[in-house]
């Protein structure tokens, strides 16, 4: 380890599987689904009536008056970030605020605030539009609120790269610490857009599962019966810290963020490159950045969202960039697809897989696609010694991010 190495010293999350990291991880290892029916009246007219809804509503954690000023995506980002902060032991540690940065993004942002306020505008006129509307819907809102709460003064950054956002935010945090601009970065992603309009938009693209009668079976990456992704809401946050800084204060270290690779397809606004060329380059760069070779990567937490078009290209990519040996999984089979938060939540799963020497399962892989020629931890968690693991995230627009975590 060198002084510019970056390690993970805090984790936080609120997800469809649990209101914190421990409950979410327990649910993953048990192979539980967080996908449930949408019971609101507005859902009746939709073709998609299921989602990964938060296990713990933010209103149970944040008081009513504060919630008036926060978009749901901001509220859950704050919850996850504060959990990660508390977990890191940095609270009250005397960290210089000018050495603390935030890198936190969202795929879609405060769209639900925009839509709700538009309803008010139409029904009651412009004077009734909330003065909190703009800070609630602005895409930098979650990062900004975290920065205010933690008094981060080394810069607050907001990623937006669709479903790669959470991982790209971690990659930026790695760059910030390596470049010496901060000692600690709170990084992650958040998403909360379970609302008829985003659901209808994704459904119109025919990108979503309509397995409304069997919600827990709807997210089934690599299975022949997969018919689209299931939208999830949630947030994941990680505290990244310069290694020597963490050691000096005796911090508990989960893992090292050893490398990142970012590429873009330059191909299509929504379709992934079928040969995963951009993904292969991202994975290769991440492995090289970590100073490793493909043979070192024992496990991959795949992007695999359960869409007919997307899942198999990544399989080719992993074979090409990593090899045919890693044990892979898609935790989206349980959480649903948390869009801009996916990369953060799945990084947390990757880190805990290293810590606990276990690969969380891919549930619902009952009838694997004939082209699936890699070893998936299907149905049940798989014990595995993992010295290095990778997390992949790909996003609409052709964003590809691969992160490599290693055991410390």
């Amino acid at each position, binding site marked *: 380890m060198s002084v510019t190495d970056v390690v993970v010293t805090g984790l936080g999350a609120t997800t469809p599987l649990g209101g914190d990291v421990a409950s979410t991880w327990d649910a993953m290892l048990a192979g539980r689904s967080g996908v449930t029916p949408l019971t609101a009246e507005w859902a009746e007219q939709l073709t998609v009536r299921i989602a990964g809804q938060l296990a713990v509503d933010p209103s149970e954690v944040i*008081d*009513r*008056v504060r919630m008036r*000023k926060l978009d749901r995506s901001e509220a859950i980002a704050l919850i996850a970030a504060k959990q990660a902060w508390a977990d890191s032991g940095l609270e009250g540690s005397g960290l210089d605020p000018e050495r603390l940065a935030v890198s936190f993004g969202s795929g879609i942002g405060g769209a639900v605030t925009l839509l709700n306020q538009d309803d008010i505008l139409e029904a009651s006129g412009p*004077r009734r539009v909330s*003065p*909190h509307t703009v800070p609630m819907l602005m895409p930098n809102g979650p990062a900004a609120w975290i920065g205010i709460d933690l008094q981060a003064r080394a810069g607050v950054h907001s990623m937006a790269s669709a479903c790669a956002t959470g991982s790209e935010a971690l990659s930026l945090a790695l760059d910030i610490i390596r470049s010496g601009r901060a000692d600690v970065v709170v990084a992650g992603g958040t998403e909360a857009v379970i609302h008829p309009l985003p659901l209808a938009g994704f459904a119109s693209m025919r990108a979503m599962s309509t397995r409304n009668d069997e919600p827990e079976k709807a997210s089934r990456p690599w299975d022949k019966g997969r018919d689209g992704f299931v939208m999830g809401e949630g947030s994941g946050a990680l505290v990244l810290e310069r290694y020597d800084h963490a050691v000096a204060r005796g911090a508990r270290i989960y893992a090292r963020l050893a490398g990142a690779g970012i590429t873009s397809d330059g191909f299509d606004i929504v379709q992934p490159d079928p040969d995963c060329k951009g993904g292969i380059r991202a994975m290769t760069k991440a492995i090289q950045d970590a100073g490793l070779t493909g043979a070192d990567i024992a496990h991959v937490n795949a992007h695999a969202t359960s869409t007919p078009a997307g899942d198999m290209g990544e399989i080719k990519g992993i074979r090409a960039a990593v090899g045919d040996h890693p044990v892979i999984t898609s935790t989206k089979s349980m959480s649903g697809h948390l869009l801009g938060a996916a990369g953060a939540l799945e990084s947390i799963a990757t880190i805990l897989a290293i810590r606990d020497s276990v690969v969380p399962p891919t549930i619902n892989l009952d009838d694997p696609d004939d082209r699936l020629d890699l070893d998936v931890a299907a149905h049940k968690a798989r014990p595995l010694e993992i010295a290095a693991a990778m997390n992949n995230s790909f996003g609409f627009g052709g964003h590809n991010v691969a992160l490599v975590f290693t055991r410390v």
Partner: protein
Amino acid sequence: MATREEITSGLAEILEEVAGVNPEDVAEEKSFTDDLDVDSLSMVEVVVAAEEKFGVKIPDNEVQNLKTVGDAVSFIEANH
């Protein structure tokens, strides 16, 4: 016509709803920002809610003069 006490009590309800202010802390001499911690955006919400509750129009250029609860009570009393 509402009395000053009734207007103060109505404002206290609004302040509790919008800004989480304890109704027992609301009194005519209290400053919205310094004593009751109502931030500028929440103050806009208070004004709009007060307009509805008391049937008054509070012009934006008047809002800056409403420093205390008593200022707001006097304006509402004189204009509703």
